[in-house]
């Protein structure tokens, strides 16, 4: 009886303490969580995946794109990724290469088969949509701890998992977001959900990561990523059809001069 009362009292005390007084320790705790998230996903080296991208607008109209994505882990810097379009037919063979960096702007190139030329894409506009989807470029590049500053918010259950909730603020000047709210599960430090806040600090998009699968006994990958734009009511689903970690990929496969041969 007394125990229950104490608990209730404690709960009240905690809820009425203004968040600002907890700030200092909160940021350290949040950074610890972020660092652990990154640490748990180190050492995967490379992967190759077939992905279906499904776009849907408020009218319920749908569009599909098939992509194959090759990724290479880079020690001490952001990862490299090569995305090749398999469909629709009009853009088949178009290849997109990106070098993600922790602090400097990312580098991006695109190969257009109809033009048979490689073009650099201006890196300032990372906030723009990735091939007309609800995913922005910056949502697609690899996660690096240094890309954000952090604040610990609390705990909450999402998708049946106990999660830490942290707020991360992009350090990149031209980001399209003021902040992101991230739900990271306690069991494996996997991201379960992200809320994206736009320039006027209102909720813009919600990302749900679902059907996590374990690869190589160590690396968790979501088979479904569902991004919903709450303002335009458009949504995009990324569905991983197949993913392989035993690849022979090396730095040479991620060379812009060899994009023409990318398949």
């Amino acid at each position, binding site marked *: 009886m007394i125990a229950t009362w104490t608990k209730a009292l404690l709960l009240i005390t905690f809820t009425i303490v203004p968040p600002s007084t907890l700030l200092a320790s909160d940021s350290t705790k949040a950074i610890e969580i972020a660092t652990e998230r990154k640490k748990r996903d180190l050492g995967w080296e490379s992967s190759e995946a077939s992905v279906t991208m499904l776009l849907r607008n408020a009218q319920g*109209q749908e*569009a599909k794109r098939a992509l194959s994505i090759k990724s290479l882990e880079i020690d001490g810097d952001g990862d490299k990724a090569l995305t090749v379009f398999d469909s629709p037919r009009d853009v088949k063979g*178009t290849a997109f290469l990106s070098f993600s960096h922790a602090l400097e702007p990312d580098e991006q190139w*695109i190969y257009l088969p109809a033009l048979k030329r490689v073009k650099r894409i*201006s890196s300032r506009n990372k906030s723009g949509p*990735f*091939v*007309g989807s609800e995913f922005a470029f910056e949502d697609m590049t690899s996660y690096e701890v240094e890309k954000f500053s952090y604040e610990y918010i609390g705990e909450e259950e999402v998708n049946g998992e106990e999660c830490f909730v942290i707020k991360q603020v992009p350090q990149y000047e031209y980001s*399209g977001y003021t902040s992101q709210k991230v739900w990271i599960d306690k069991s494996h430090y996997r991201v379960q959900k992200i809320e994206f806040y736009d*320039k006027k600090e209102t909720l813009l998009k919600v990302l749900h990561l679902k059907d996590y699968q374990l690869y190589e006994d160590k690396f968790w990958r979501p088979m479904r990523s569902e991004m919903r734009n709450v303002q335009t009511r458009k949504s995009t689903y990324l569905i991983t059809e197949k993913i392989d970690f035993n690849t022979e990929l090396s730095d040479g496969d991620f060379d812009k001069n060899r994009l023409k041969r990318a398949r």
Partner: protein
Amino acid sequence: MAHNSEQSPLYLTHPKVSLLITAIVMVVALIGAQNLYFRGDYKVFFEEKDPQRLAFEEMQNTFNKSENVAFMIVPKSGNVYNTQTLNLASELTEAAWQMPFSTRVESVSNYQNTYDLDGDLIVEDLILEKMRAGEATAHVQKVVESTPELIGRLASRDGRALVVNTIIQMPDGDQTRHILDIASAAKSLKADLLARYPSHDIYLTGIVMMNDAFAIAASHDVMKLIPAMFLLIFVSIAIIVRSLWSAIFTMVVVSVSIAITMGVTGWFGVFLSTATVNVPTVITTLAVADCIHVIVGMRYFQRKGRSPHDAILESVRVNKKPIFITSITTAIGFLMLNFSAVPVLAHLGNMTAIGVMLACLFSLTALPAMLSLRPQIPDNRSQNALFAKWGQFVIVNHKLALLLSSAVILTISLFALNNRLNDIAVEYFDERSSFRQAVEVNNNIFGGMSNIDFVLFTDIPYGITKHEFLDDVESFSDWLEKRDEVNHVLTFTDTLKRLNKNMNGDIESFYTIPNDSELTSQYLLLYEMSLPFGLDLGNQIDIDKSALRIVAVTQNLGSNELTKLETEAKAFFHTLNSNYRIEAASPPLMFAHIGERNMSNMVWGSIFALVLISGLIIFALRSVKLGVVSLFTNLLPAAVGFGIWGMLSGEINMALSVVVSMTMGIIVDDTVHFLSKYQTARIQNQSNEQSILFAFDSVGMALTTTTIVLTLGFAVLASSSFMLNAHMGMLTIIIIIAALLVDFIFLPALLAWLGNNAHNRKSRAKLAQTQRG
């Protein structure tokens, strides 16, 4: 208990009890009023499955919405290409992203300028950084003037103004509150920037600002003019009837009828809309008329020497039938609006029908109860003699009166043909409104702000990159561009031609549509990948690249000119012999269609209702002759009213279509009371002429009083700066005065003439006898 109430009904034996019952009913009804809410969005005018609404919503869902706030920057120097003005535009562009529900901001400063740099496609803001004083602006000017997507849309062709266009995406549901929030954010942003850039003017236009102006004007009228109108009605009743209590009692009946109607509406879960905000006014007109009949009738019998109690009883007895007939026929007329395709007009019809019947009930129960509590001092003036004299005059000269009045009515009515339906939403506000001032400046510099969005569907994924399709789009945009009423055409073909040029080393001869659809698709992909947040092509291209939206900005066209442009554009597109589908939609086009639909529904619905009411009068008065006569007196006032409007203005807008139904009650009231008094006398075997005189004597005062009172009341509304209300007030006044004149000149002359033809000369002799005697 009060069953043998032949002599004294409950409301006279127990006036306080009956008033208490009325009060309880009102309180119970008013509990429902808390469910009431207001919906100001366009959807209320359309049924769920209306094809136009579905097409419009499909467009809104497929592409981004096109509701906007446009900031127009006009430097006092007359030229925008200076560092100050361009910095102002950049700063405003950044700040506009902070406005509530903004999803996209477009201006010359964040225009995504593309060019070739050593074989790479550069896509970046035209004005990347804040310009320092004296920095060259020539580059910006050169790009703006050579870019069809900018010139004439975001920068004026004469270099006098820039536009920062903010696209707003509001959630569904009650938008009125959001609109006020957005507009106030825009106004404070404007004030803040003007303080820092004093040599500039900023004007706010766009759909959101227009809706804000609507809301402000409507609420100003509801808060200020409507109360003033009620006050004036109250004061004029008090003066004309010479009794403060009579005026108070009338207002009580009016208020209770309105309150219960609103309460019942709330109980049924019906929302309020721009169509139903006029319900209280419509109920007021008839409730005032009912009360004045009872009060003036009581005075009449008091003057004839009856006790106050008897006078009340007698007034109720003689007025019961005409008031009931007027109310029931008017109510049935309003219920006819249920056949209209516009849901809110059905609401208007049902609510008014309830209100009218309530006014009938309370003017015959609660009003006499109140009157019995405050007996009136008899009034010995004999004003009614005036009406009898006028009646005599008309009877004696009935042939001349009939001929002259018919000629005048016919001539005036012919002017009704001058009227044209022409809703120009931006002109609903007079020059006192700051929105209207902004519209005028925009009109001077840009030539107008109306628009039609055309969507061309190929129905195949990536269909829009096909050369055949793009050629059709090009021809279609050229056709639009050549129209005088079109100021600017935003078309993806311009963007594509520019990309082709950039991808080929910025060589001018490549400013064409690529021949290869794969090349087009890949340019598009590259360009899309290069655009920043909020500036994607989602407003022009759908997600599977199967449909394209082309935006034509036009002059501030009237509804019929706008729909004409729509029809002709579609017809032209079909002559291209392609199998592509075309749809057109935009908020102004919606207004235009709503206007047309509303207008024809309302006017024909009301005319049908008036004819139907005449049919009902045949049964109510059990006389075919009087029913046919009532057909004239019911229809002619509206014909005269619209005839006079045709002489004065000739432009009919949405609000005017409501006027016929608004005045219907009064028109019918005048007719029914006159005819029923005439018939009463005829049944008592009085001569035709005597019966006409009796009608004048017993209702002339009441009809005149009602007309004067309502004219004064509506004069307040006519003074509004909101043209919708001002015109509505003016036309209402014209029609109710016309109704009185028709009933005082044409009707008695017609009755006298009919009586002369149908009956023998005896009656005339009889009249001469009574006059001598």
